């Protein structure tokens, strides 16, 4: 029972409290580069999540087999393998998607989020917990990318998943699709998350104070 609960905790933390993009601010290169449409962002997020889960599983199951001295090289080898697999699979599923994601699929290899989870979590935890951690972090990453992609596509193209949302007279903010728009959107989301966090902290503080007063 206790282990299943902690597994759920590992899953939840990646979604919200330790969200890789909004809280840890990791892997910014793909976050900013391929979040110009919701579809690209979601595909990139899911590809990263798949690599993250698979590498977490393999790294954690081999954790007693890999000597400390060669661990980084081995992790990179494992990660690169799954990235290559994803690369072929995306090409087989949709050439258009492959064209849109371009070089960023190969660059998943150097996404510090994945190596970070392999090193900080999977190499020290059981396969089950590492899988949950990978799932949570991966879905959290995909969710964050989707948040950026959706906002940028709606404002920059007046559409979501390619479906037109507004009347033709809607003036598109082209800047939102350009790289600078990625920074603006990311900043806005970070602002929101920090504000939420601060508000929560303040609430807890006042609650604690009130409790103290009551006790007194």
């Amino acid at each position, binding site marked *: 029972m206790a282990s299943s609960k902690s597994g759920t905790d590992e899953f939840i933390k990646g979604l919200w409290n330790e969200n890789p993009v909004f809280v840890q601010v990791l892997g910014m290169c793909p976050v900013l580069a391929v979040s*110009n449409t919701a579809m690209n962002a979601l595909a990139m997020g899911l590809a990263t999540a798949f690599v993250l889960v698979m590498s977490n599983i393999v790294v954690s199951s*081999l954790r007693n*087999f*890999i*000597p*400390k*001295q*060669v661990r980084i*090289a*081995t992790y990179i*080898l*494992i990660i*690169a*393998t799954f990235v*290559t*697999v994803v690369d*072929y*699979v995306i*090409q*087989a599923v*949709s*050439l258009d998607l492959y*064209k849109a994601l*371009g070089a960023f699929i190969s660059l998943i290899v150097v996404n510090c989020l994945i190596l970070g989870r392999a090193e900080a979590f999977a190499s020290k935890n059981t396969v089950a917990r590492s899988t949950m951690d990978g799932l949570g972090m991966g879905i959290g990453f995909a969710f964050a990318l989707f948040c950026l992609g959706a906002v940028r596509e709606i404002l*920059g*193209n007046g559409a979501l998943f390619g479906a037109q949302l507004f009347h033709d007279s809607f003036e*598109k903010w*082209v800047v939102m*699709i*350009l790289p600078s728009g990625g920074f603006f959107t990311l900043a806005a989301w970070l602002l929101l998350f920090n504000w939420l966090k601060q508000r929560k902290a303040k609430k807890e503080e006042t609650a604690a104070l009130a409790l103290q007063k009551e006790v007194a």
Partner: protein
Amino acid sequence: MSQSELATAPAPAAPSIWHMYRAMVGVGVFCGLLIVSVFQVTLPIIERNKAEALQEAIFEVLPNATKSTTYRLTEAGGFELVEGEDDAGRLVYAGYDDAEQLVGLAVEAEGMGYQDVIALIYGYSFTEQAIVGIQVLESKETPGLGDKIETDADFLENFKSLDVSVGEDGSALANSVVPVKHGEKTQPWEVDGITGATISSVAIANLLDRSAQYWVPRIRNNLADFQGQE
């Protein structure tokens, strides 16, 4: 700190070389096998996707064609029919209509755009002596600006009938394809540019010019090669 001091510093207790070796080689073999098997499984699907995308593009740029055949440029300057899946050499795609009549040729061309190489395929019509359609196959032009070369209706209108007739001596185009500023197109061989995507639209005009200068005279001088369709 000298070299000798570094060398004499006590080394951390190392696991045996064999363990490191075993881990690296083991993981390497596992990864290699995984990649090879995924590659084997996906290769035919990827090739089919690419061939389908090319077929679609050919029919897109040659609106009247319903069938296509691949030809290769021979060293003698003529064209020969390509058998099977062999795709070596410089290829053109002949399009035929329902009555087995040659309607035109689709030719691939590429050139430097604003971000990266732009690859496209264009349709050449014999009767009109003109480019009758283009389809961008690969481009990394700026989304929202440079990628208008694929979506801008005014710009694509240029390629409904872009004059590429050959000159009198049959070795070059009578008029080069030239880019002009948006709204200043007066001749059928001029390409009306896109405001805000100047470099990308000029790149398209230039790469079409270079490709047409090369291919159109060769194609016209060897017209008979394409008629031997069974």
